[in-house]
């Protein structure tokens, strides 16, 4: 058997504007949002009735009934019904991981084209039955006699109706929320409030400028009458950011916090998707290639016993990938580092500049060094757009691919941190 590795082309991307939780998309389901996003991509590249090789995607916050979410969404679009699809989930890395999986299939010649996507809603969140009540109902259904059934049901209490199981935005093993973990990291790395606010402001200003330049016109489909991310604050000032009170300090650093609602991403609803293909497939359809997905890497850290920062995994993933690609951290024209929290980005950059950390934790001979900050998230990132967990990967790929296409040639780095101490990173080239 002869297998050749093929280049994987990024043809385009699409997303719906992202919306802060419980605002304009309050009543939109994951199914609705991902379907609208996929349909927008199908319309843009005229894929009506086409059978694609695969569609991969997922959601972090998911209803049990959405066990086959992506396939159901595909069936709701004008793609051929014969297009297979599957769900996957890797927390905030879901969207990028989906793209890597589809890209690998294309690279190996298993498929010619595919879509990778992601969607999330924290507004239309799954609320479970009270856990005790759920067990009683299951016991009742297992009962073999009326007596046993009544005995089980007699354990029900009215209070159970009002204490449902709510989804939590926290790490099961530590009990801390993402923000609390990021606050701990900011303390460990000595990241100042001022540096975080400055990054948040530049993210907002960059996104506003990109919208004004029409950058997102061919990367977005309006949804529910919304045509811009509603977390964008074009009129934001540094004074307004300074006036916000720390939001995650109470448990981990009472009265000494640095993370605020302004320099952290809000809970967000939204969806994104990217179209990937072999060069042959693109050529046949006369579709221009924006960029190529050339390298990827995942990493995970021990944030529990070894006490590594929960969101530090990208710091490990990037040097491993650079080594395989024979590149240095400075060999990039653009850096798309997902801004889960301004502190996460700043901790990662500081870690790469720290010789001791690079030597002892990352096993490198010397520090990776500093990056040119003018190349970081040049068209804004999650602090401004918001962060619908699984949809962020698709947003980053489409944004970076278009940046490289506009530039004509070059290389860009994508880095995403994810719950569970994980990180997913990739290199795009043109």
């Amino acid at each position, binding site marked *: 058997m002869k297998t050749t590795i093929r280049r994987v082309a990024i043809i385009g991307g699409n997303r719906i504007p992202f919306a802060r939780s419980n605002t304009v998309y309050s009543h939109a389901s994951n199914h609705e949002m991902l379907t609208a996003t996929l349909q927008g991509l199908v319309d843009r590249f005229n894929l009506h009735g086409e059978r694609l090789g695969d569609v991969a995607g997922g959601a972090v916050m998911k209803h049990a009934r959405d066990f086959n979410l992506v396939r159901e969404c595909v069936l709701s679009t004008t793609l051929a019904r014969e297009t297979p699809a599957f769900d996957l989930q890797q927390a905030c890395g879901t969207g990028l991981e989906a793209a890597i999986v589809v890209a690998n299939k294309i690279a190996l010649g298993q498929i010619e084209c595919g879509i990778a996507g992601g969607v999330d809603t924290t507004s239309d969140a799954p609320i479970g039955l009270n856990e005790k009540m759920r067990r009683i109902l299951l016991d009742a259904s297992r009962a073999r006699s009326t007596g046993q059934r009544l005995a089980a049901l007699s354990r029900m209490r009215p209070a159970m109706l009002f204490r449902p199981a709510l989804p939590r935005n926290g790490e099961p093993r530590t009990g801390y929320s993402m923000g609390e973990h990021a606050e701990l990291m900011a303390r460990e790395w000595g990241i100042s409030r001022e540096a975080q606010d400055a990054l948040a402001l530049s993210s907002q200003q960059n996104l506003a400028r990109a919208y004004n330049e029409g950058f997102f016109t061919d990367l977005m489909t309006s949804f529910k009458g919304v045509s811009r991310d509603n977390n964008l604050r074009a009129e934001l000032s540094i004074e307004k950011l*300074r006036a916000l009170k720390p939001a995650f300090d109470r448990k981990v650093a009472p009265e000494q916090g640095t993370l605020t609602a302004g320099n952290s991403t809000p809970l967000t609803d939204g969806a994104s998707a990217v179209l990937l293909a072999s060069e042959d497939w693109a050529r046949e359809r006369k579709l221009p290639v924006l960029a190529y997905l050339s390298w990827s890497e995942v990493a995970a850290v021990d944030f529990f016993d070894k006490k590594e920062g929960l969101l530090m995994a990208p710091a490990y993933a990037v040097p491993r990938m650079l080594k395989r690609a024979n590149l240095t951290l400075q060999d990039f024209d653009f850096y798309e580092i997902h801004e889960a929290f301004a502190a996460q980005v700043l901790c990662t950059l500081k870690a790469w500049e720290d010789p001791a950390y690079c030597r002892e934790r990352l096993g490198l001979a010397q520090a990776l060094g500093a990056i040119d900050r003018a190349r970081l998230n040049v068209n804004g990132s999650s602090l401004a757009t918001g962060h619908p967990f699984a949809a962020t990967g698709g947003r980053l790929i489409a944004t970076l691919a278009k940046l490289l296409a506009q530039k004509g040639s070059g290389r860009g780095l994508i880095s995403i941190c994810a719950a569970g101490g994980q990180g997913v990173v990739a290199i795009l080239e043109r």
Partner: protein
Amino acid sequence: MKTIEISQPKGAAASLLGVVLARRKPAAAVNALPEVTLVRPQVVLDAAHIARYANVCGFHMAQGVPISYPQMLTFPLLMAFFGSGDCPWPAMGTVHLANRIVQLQRLDAGDTVRVEVRTGRLLAHEKGQTFELELRVLRADTLVWEATQTLLRLGVKQPAGAAYASALSADLPLSHQADFMASANIGRRYGRVSGDLNPIHLSALSARLFGFQRAIAHGLWTQARALAALLPRAPVTQAALTSEFKTPLLLPARATLWSTRQIQGTLQQAALFEVRNARGDKPHLRGQLDYQ
């Protein structure tokens, strides 16, 4: 130089009485303060009292003896000074304008120290006469802690001394750091711990007798409450604090703490801070803290 030794401080009520009686003193101009040193030759740092102070001011036990705590030890001496003929003006109506604290060595509960208060410079202020009191704490004849209290006697015409100037220069932008409650009874609680039972701090009614709408928080409580938030959760060895009291904090209130650490201080760590009103547009207290 006159030295007055006070081994058995008077009770809070007695010293308050002295202070109230001393109200009869006129608001006269003087050329210099008499050179007086008041001394408590042997004071043991009482863990229980430190704990009560820490609790009222919001300090964490892990922070050890707060750098502002030794001011509690000087209070009986200050009251004795104000109640004596050596102080040209009464305590009532004397405004606490600023203070500077320098801790040179870490203090621990159980330490035996010598506490001194002596008269310092006169400075001319646009609203009256400013005068300084120098506070010192020595352990085994070594100076471990010192402070300067800058007080203002309002309404003194043609005040003596060089012009008073703010010691806090850098006007850096500050960020909202924390909120804290100054509860209605905080004046009474801090008063019981500190011995400072000035009626303007105790209740709305007693404060009204002295021209305030409501009781006002002790400036030193506000300062200590800010320090509790700014200092790390471990004892510090060296520290320097410069504070200026801007406007009274009327009780009860929700106050906001604003700060920045983007300054170069004299020690490893430094913070510039303000305690402001709930809206964050009016400062009650401004200060710079250095520590290591």
